Every structure is written in C-alpha cells, then in structure tokens.
C-alpha cells in the first residue's frame, strides 16, 4: 500500500465511549479506529447498541463519557464532510415533500439560511438521483414510493452532500433486490473515490461480500478488524452470546435468502 496516500488521521477514532439510555448502560468503554477508504459493518444482536453508537458519534444522543474524532478533529469541524443516513423507520414518510426536495436537503449544510439551492446544487442532486436510478421519480411525494425506493432517496441525499465519510443506519433493512444492487453499486463508486462507509448491518450472511471491515458490538466492543481475520466463529459467539441465538440468526438469514431466490424464480 502506498503510505503517502493514507492521511495521518483515521476517518473515525472513538476513545472510551460510554452511553446510557434512561440510566441503563447501552455502551461501555468502546474504543476503536477505522481505516480510510473501506466499507465497515457494525454488527451485533438486537439491542447491542449499534444504532446508538452511530447516533452518539453524530452527537444526536449524549455521551456519558468518551471522545469521537473525525480525521483528528471534533465533529463540529467535519459536519459537512460527514453524511448520516437515519433508519428508515425514523422518517415521517407522510410528510408532504417530493423526492427532489429531500435530495436537495443534502446541500443545505453548504447554504446560508436565507439561500436557495443554486443551479449547481440542483445539478449535484440530479446526478445523485441518477446514480441511484431514482431520477424518474423526482416529482413523486415520498409516501408514494416503495420501501427500497425510499431508501435510495435517502442515500441520494447523503450522496448529494459530497461527504468523505458516510454513516448509515441499516440501509439494507427490508429493501428489494434492485435497491440492494443500487446500494452495492454506490459502495463501489464511493470506495473508488477513497471515501469511507460505515453501516449498521443486520444480515450476517452478506457481511463478508459487502464489507472490508467489521466492528462487532454487544454493549462493549467485542472485536474490530478486517473481515477475513475478525469474523471468526469465536468472535461471533462472543458477540451474539449463546450458540442458539447465533444459530437462529443464521437459519433466519438462510431462510430469507431461500425466500428471495424463490421470488427470483417467479
């Protein structure tokens, strides 16, 4: 690897991060660094604190203790170059707003509060929609889209922000095959530009095909590192607790893939 291409500071460095929810500890003493230009999955069982970690890093929920640095700086200096994609359930899909306006929100950080998006902003938004094959839906109200299409709109919004670092909360949850392919395509494009992607991910089957790196979390950091060396049976067992729950997860995902394949044959 050419060391001159790698910047001195990692995209994210988390030091001794702890978070609580209503006095109940959710994350305790989490520390890690992630490499630049990789796709990174955050995995762990339900309630392990995956989304909470993402929100804590984005300062959307308070930290009890700890530090988060983005390229060696506090978030306040790096907000515009850090794009966040919330979970689909957190969005009010009945809101009267069309696809184009949502994507243009990606440009708002760059605008002063009285400014309207310029022709250039609109061009960036158009390109983002085309990249995710959503351009023909630009005038649709978001409530009239399918789940996968809604997800693509929010990814286009993040793309329009032209960030260096993308934090996504379960982008693959409940999406159709076309959207899954579109997201993978997006990953390739962003990686080719040297950008870093961090995703909360639930599907253990696809971790090794979609991601380079993995953070395994269960209230604490269990393991962090390249997928090949880190996604081991021991680490999986430590993360997902009993063998049974892991088995359940795996059978469920297998069942899902079979179901998808069955649908594909239709």
């Amino acid at each position, binding site marked *: 690897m050419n060391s001159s291409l790698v910047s001195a500071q990692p995209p994210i460095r988390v030091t001794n991060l702890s978070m609580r929810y209503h006095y109940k500890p959710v994350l305790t003493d989490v520390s890690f660094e992630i490499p630049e230009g990789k796709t990174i999955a955050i995995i762990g069982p339900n309630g392990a604190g995956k989304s909470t970690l993402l929100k804590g890093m*984005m*300062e*959307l929920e308070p930290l009890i203790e700890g530090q988060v640095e983005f390229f060696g700086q506090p978030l*306040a200096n790096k*907000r*515009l170059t*850090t*794009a*966040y994609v*919330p979970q689909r359930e*957190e*969005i*009010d899909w009945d*809101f*009267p*707003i*069309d696809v184009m*306006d*949502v994507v243009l*929100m990606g440009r*708002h*950080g760059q*605008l002063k*509060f*009285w*400014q*309207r*998006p310029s022709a250039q902003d609109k061009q960036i938004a158009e390109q983002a929609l085309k990249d995710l094959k959503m351009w023909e839906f630009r005038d649709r*109200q978001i409530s009239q889209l399918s789940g996968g299409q809604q997800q693509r709109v929010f990814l286009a919004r993040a793309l329009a*922000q032209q960030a260096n670092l993308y934090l996504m909360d379960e982008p693959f949850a409940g999406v159709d095959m076309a959207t899954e392919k579109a997201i993978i395509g997006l990953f390739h494009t962003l990686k080719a530009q040297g950008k870093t992607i961090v995703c909360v991910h639930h599907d253990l089957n696809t971790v090794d095909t979609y991601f380079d790196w993995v953070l395994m979390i269960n209230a604490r950091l269990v393991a962090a590192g390249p997928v090949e060396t880190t996604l081991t049976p021991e680490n999986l067992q430590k993360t997902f607790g009993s063998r049974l729950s892991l088995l359940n997860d795996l059978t469920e995902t297998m069942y899902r893939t079979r179901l998808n394949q069955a649908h594909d044959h239709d």
Partner: protein
Amino acid sequence: MISDLWILATASLVAVACSMVGSFLILRRQSLLGDAISHSVLLGIVLAFLATDSRSLPVMLSGAVLIGLTTAWLSDQLHKTGQLQSDASIGIVFTLFFAVGVILISLYAGDIDLDQECVLYGEIAFVPFDTVIWGDLKTGIDLGPRAFWMILIVFAAVLASVVVFYQRLQTVTFHPTLAVSLGINVVFWHYFMMTLVSMTTVASFDAVGAILVVALLVIPASTAYLLAKSLKQMLWMAAGFAELAVLIGYALAFWLDSSISASIAVSAGIVLLAVVVQQQFYQRRLRTQTAIQSPLSAN
C-alpha cells in the same frame, strides 16, 4: 359597509397567518403546543399591560412572545427533568399561566381594558370601533381598526419569515435529527417557530379570542395536510382553506345573526369534513375501479 370590509380584512389576515404557522405546527406534531401558547399569551398581555400601562403593539407583542417562549421552555424542562409526559407537561404549564392571567384580569378589572368573555371568545364585530387615530383625538386622521394594523404587521412578519427561511424551516420540520447532522441549530429554529406562534396568536386575540384561534391554527392546515404533495402546496392550500372558512363563516354569521368568529371556526370544520368525505369517496371509487380492472389485467 366599511365596517364589514374591516371585519373581513382582519379575519382574513388572522386566518391566513394562523394557517401558515399552523402548517408547521401540524407537521412538527406540535399543535398542542400551539394551543398552549395561544392560551398562555394572555398572561403575557396582562403582565405587559400592568408593567407599562400601555396597549401599544410592541408592548403587547413582547409580553406575548416572552410568555409564549417561557411556556415552550418550561414544558420542555418539566418533561425532561420532571420525567413527565410531554403532553402532560404542556397541559400543566399553559393552564397555570392562563389561570394566573384570568386572576390578574379579575383583580385589576377596573384598570384593564380586557374583558374575560372577549379574551376567550373574541368579538370581531367590535373590531371596527377600536381604531388607531393619527394625531389629535378630535382632529386626527382615523387609520382604521387597531386589531387590523396589529395583525397586518404580524402577518407581514410571518410571511417574510416563511419566505426567507423556507429551506431551513422545511429541513428542520421534516427531519430534526437530519438537520442536526447537517449542523443546523434545531433549538434556535424551534424557538423561532414558537415566537411566530406567540405573535400570531396575540394578534389574533381581539378578533377570535383564545379558544377559537386554535381552530384557525389547526383546522385549515390539517385540511391542507390531507391533500398536499409538497410543503409549498400545503402552505398555499392552508391559506386557501382559511380564507374559504372566513368567507363561508361570515355569510353564516350574517344569515344566523350570530358570532362571526364561532361561525368561521365551524366553517373551517365543515370544509375539513367535506375534504375527508370527498377523499373517502375517491379512494373507494379507486378501489372498485382497480377491483374491476385487475381480473382483466391478470389475463
């Protein structure tokens, strides 16, 4: 005839200003907070009057805004630190403020030109009699009703805010978390919105009173919410429905010889009902159409 025009003009400005502010309240799921502020500003007006002995516009507005923002802040604090439900905390704060306002009015009834009935229900029919006079009381020029000028200024302020800050308000309303992640100061915009609500409700007081202003904040905006495909469309539609309610309400009041403000509120409700019924009808027809078509398309 002239007084009819003043009443209609005042009512229209009140209704449209309320519909704009109300649209954002509905989308932010804060209509209860709007209700709360519309009541608690009464205390602001009374306190401002007792402190300065003046009923001038700046005094009334600052008193209302101050208490309006205090209402929003205090309910939030009660919710966060007192571990109470957010709707319960809002209910506690505004009723308390409103009750203190009512007590103050009855204590200083002789000194305050505020009547409890009028505060609660408003009496837009009296609006033309309380006019602003430029210069000397006898020789000066009559500029028209005080309530009209007050709502005109507030209307202009609300309209300018919505036009100038449209993008920010849209982002903050649509997805506060996303707005935070973009570095937008969501707390500032929340209190900015609450300032607009306070100003609008206090300026609407004379015309429609504390109870009916809620109807104008919530109903036209809700009607528009059912139909609108974008925020811009919703704001236009809400203004249209508000104006429609004013016109129907005025005719209704004339016909029944009853309260104008109550008739406007009832008309707003009737318009909402008509839209709901029309939508149900349309959806049912759509369903039967697809039911008829689908066996054909399956072949």
